[in-house]
């Protein structure tokens, strides 16, 4: 049998997941709805004054994005491990890290990207000025992508665990704290009229580090979950 190249195998995984997601699009929409609902809670809990909301708007959008991308992570590898697909991938001879990265990339397109697109709308509702839009979108682009890979490591570790969703948040949130710091800092710097280049570059640096080392950790974790 002809063996597929790495890129075509990864592409197959990506398109397969995309197709699966389209057939259950309501599941894809749920984190997005959660995102909007959570951001609505903040004005209700604090104050409807836009002037005051403005000061925390960047942070609120970031925290809500962090939480709602965690929400979708738990099921990332579960069904594939349960029906044996993952075992076949491990045995297929393809580099497992690439396949998992393709899966995570698809997950990001389905859950991370909508959050990024939604962010300016939600931010504006909280009084975020137009000048900060670009920074918010850019910081969330880098941040949600990094978070998807970090969360992929967590999901791979907890895939065989009962009630793994709470555990997953416990594992991933402390690791995601630097993203939150740099991301919301970049937004508030842009709101003050400063150049947000510093924190954005740090976010990009973390993204590339996680992108290079993350697949190794993910495939190690999946092998542990599948083999034993």
């Amino acid at each position, binding site marked *: 049998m002809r063996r597929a190249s790495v890129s075509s195998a990864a592409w197959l995984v990506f398109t397969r997941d995309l197709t699966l997601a389209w057939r259950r699009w309501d599941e894809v929409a749920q984190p997005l709805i959660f995102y909007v609902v959570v951001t609505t809670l903040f004005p209700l809990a604090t104050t409807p004054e836009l002037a005051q909301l403005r000061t925390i708007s960047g942070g609120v959008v970031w925290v809500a994005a962090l939480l709602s991308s965690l929400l979708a992570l738990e099921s990332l590898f579960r069904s594939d491990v349960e029906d044996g697909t993952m075992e076949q991938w491990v045995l297929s001879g393809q580099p497992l890290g690439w396949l998992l990265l393709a899966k995570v990339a698809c997950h990001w397109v389905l859950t991370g990207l909508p959050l990024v697109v939604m962010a300016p709308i939600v931010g504006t509702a909280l009084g975020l000025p137009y000048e900060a839009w670009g920074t918010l979108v850019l910081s969330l682009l880098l941040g949600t992508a990094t978070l998807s890979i970090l969360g992929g490591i967590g999901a791979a*570790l907890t895939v065989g665990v009962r009630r793994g969703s709470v555990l997953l948040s*416990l*594992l991933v949130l402390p*690791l995601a*704290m*630097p993203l939150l*710091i740099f991301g919301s800092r970049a937004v508030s710097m842009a709101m003050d009229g400063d150049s947000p280049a510093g924190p954005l570059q740090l976010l990009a640096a973390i993204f590339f580090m996680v992108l290079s080392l993350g697949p190794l950790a993910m495939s*190690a974790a999946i092998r542990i979950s599948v083999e034993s």
Partner: protein
Amino acid sequence: MWNWLHKFASPPHAYRLLGKLAPWFGWSSLALILLATWWGLVEAPMDYQQKDAFRILYVHAPSAWMSMFTYVMMAVAAGIGLIWRIKLAHAAAAAAAPIGASFTFLALATGSIWGKPMWGTWWVWDARLTSELILLFLYLGYMALRSSFDDPQRADRASAVLAIVGVINVPIIHYSVEWWSTLHQPASVTKLDKPSIALEMLYPLFMMIVGFQLFFGWALSRRLRGEILRRERNATWLKDVS
């Protein structure tokens, strides 16, 4: 060297060796900690700015140091266990985690008690306190992951991956929190934290750190022995020991 390593890594040998080492660690740490306590609380001069309140440093700084040392040691042990498949290394990581979490908690508690007279509040979002708090979360996550598996081998290997991911992240978390707090706070708060310390104050601190390190050795030997007993409860060599 490999022969020696394999001999040490065998549970019966390690069990006996740790049993012999534990009293040495225990008594020497007790002696050093008592001596350093007396030296630090009675002999060392008073701080001109913080008066006697600074003396909590002799508990706070060693436990903060040990909290980080233990995490790195745990990650190194987990890495050794993962790469060379040495079960004893996994057991050492498992035994070290609760000790490290306790040191972290102690550092947080003493930091908060120290903060009350110095800053006027129990908690300040100071960079060191915050990164210490995140370190505590990392410990708790590690222990939660370990305890959620029924199969001990899987628990060992999965938590080893987490420990290694965590230890790569610790410096990033530390520097990001440092940067975050310097931007948000007046410098006067952090200035109190690193005074140019007098030598008479420093000697008992060093002694205390060595004492804490030996205490860690004692606690780890005891816990590791317990961990070996738990894992090898069906092994035949245990009958000869008891």
